[in-house]
């Protein structure tokens, strides 16, 4: 073998891509040619240096955007399996809406992965803008709760609040930080209330947080091993009433089924 040919095989040899025969004849050449051995060592150094370069990872916001986009696509595939064939325009409009929502949502996205108000706010805004308000559409807590099984790695508390004037609309899974989080959707008049339910350890402290950000009101508290975080475009007072109703239900047994039909006017 000539040096010229041997040099061309050095790379493939490092990459483990040589046939047995070629490898054998290359080794033969290397054993008698110091120059090609030197080139091989140089090439190996270069490869090692390359592999030691720091690996970039994608920014957190890109992870979140892709995950949200994936969920939207997945929901569409589940709910409207033949929509692509029937209404391409609708689908495109939907994709556009999601794009706009994500563009808006990303402005609020947090830098860290903890559950600060901004992360919930971003999820709330995204849920309003795209068609992803609910992934399961059901007012029955016994349907919504099991739906989360296998989708988040805990069983969220799902409370029926229809008697208090807050009918359950459904649920969905949001990515808060990198944590898959159960989101429950309630209605109050024309307003949507997103309620995020995440498990907490006994030791973790979440003081009641309440506030307004970008025109949305939020309130967060901790009860029965969960952190609750509610956010809405409705007024702060009505959100507080929602949270009080929910806390009351968390601490008293459910009323008998017959009273569930009673409408409540206030």
């Amino acid at each position, binding site marked *: 073998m000539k040096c010229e040919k041997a040099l061309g095989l050095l790379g493939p040899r490092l*990459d483990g891509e040589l046939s047995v025969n070629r490898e054998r004849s290359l080794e033969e050449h290397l054993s008698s040619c110091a120059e090609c051995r030197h080139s091989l060592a140089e090439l190996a150094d270069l490869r090692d240096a*390359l*592999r030691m370069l720091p690996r*970039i990872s994608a920014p957190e916001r*890109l992870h979140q955007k*892709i995950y949200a*986009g*994936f969920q939207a696509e997945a929901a569409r595939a589940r709910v409207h*399996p033949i929509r692509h064939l029937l209404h391409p325009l609708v689908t495109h409009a939907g994709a556009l809406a999601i794009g706009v929502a994500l563009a808006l949502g990303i402005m609020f996205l947090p830098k860290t992965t903890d559950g600060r108000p901004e992360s919930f706010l971003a999820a709330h805004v995204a849920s309003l803008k795209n068609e992803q308000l609910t992934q399961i559409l059901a007012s029955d807590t016994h349907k919504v709760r099991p739906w989360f099984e296998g989708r988040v790695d805990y069983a969220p508390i799902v409370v029926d609040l229809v008697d208090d004037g807050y009918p359950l609309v459904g649920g969905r899974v949001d990515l808060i930080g990198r944590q898959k989080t159960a989101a429950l959707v309630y209605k109050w008049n024309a307003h949507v209330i997103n309620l995020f339910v995440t498990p907490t350890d006994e030791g973790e402290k979440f003081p009641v947080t309440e506030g307004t950000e970008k025109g949305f009101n939020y309130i967060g508290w901790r009860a029965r091993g969960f952190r609750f975080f509610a956010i809405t475009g409705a007024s702060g007072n009505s959100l507080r009433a929602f949270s009080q109703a929910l806390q009351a239900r968390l601490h008293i047994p459910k009323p008998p089924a017959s009273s569930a039909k009673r409408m409540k006017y206030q």
Partner: protein
Amino acid sequence: MYRKRSPREFEKTMLPHIDAAYRLAMWLLGHSPDAEDAVQDSFVRAFRAFDGWKGVNAKGWLLKIVRNTCMTQLGKRSRNANVIHLDTVSGDHDGIGFSDACVDKMPLAEDVLIAADRQARLWAAVNSLPTDSIIVLILREFEDQSYKQISEIVGIPIGTVMSRLSRARQQLRARFLAQGKEGKNHEM
């Protein structure tokens, strides 16, 4: 439209490769919002084409889509810049900054600085290669793809993979060494 493959499977096989997809896009499009858009776009495409995945080398399948999306983007750029041949775009894109990626994570010890300087020079050398060379090189060295897998991702014969890779390494070696010689007054 019946789907053979479930969203859950997509989540398990494709979503773990967001970082790899981003790395490829960054090397091809530079440190710009375009790279993020391209990755996001690629995942939407991948999801819609997911039934066509043969079930092997998930990362490679995804990177092929990322690569195609980025090349389309580069094509647009070159048209905007009134450049006709794609090849001439190579090497003069914004590039990905070594410092963006890692410098703030590095402790400031002398020998670490020297190592960092060497890495920065290598980074710059890779970045100065033509796009064709960058693709094969990073698929091989950073994403651990075989020649056959690279040939599928880039859509070229295995022999071409081999010659491009060989050329890329020669270019890299030449540029890396050249930079090393003038590197005395190089600043981070």
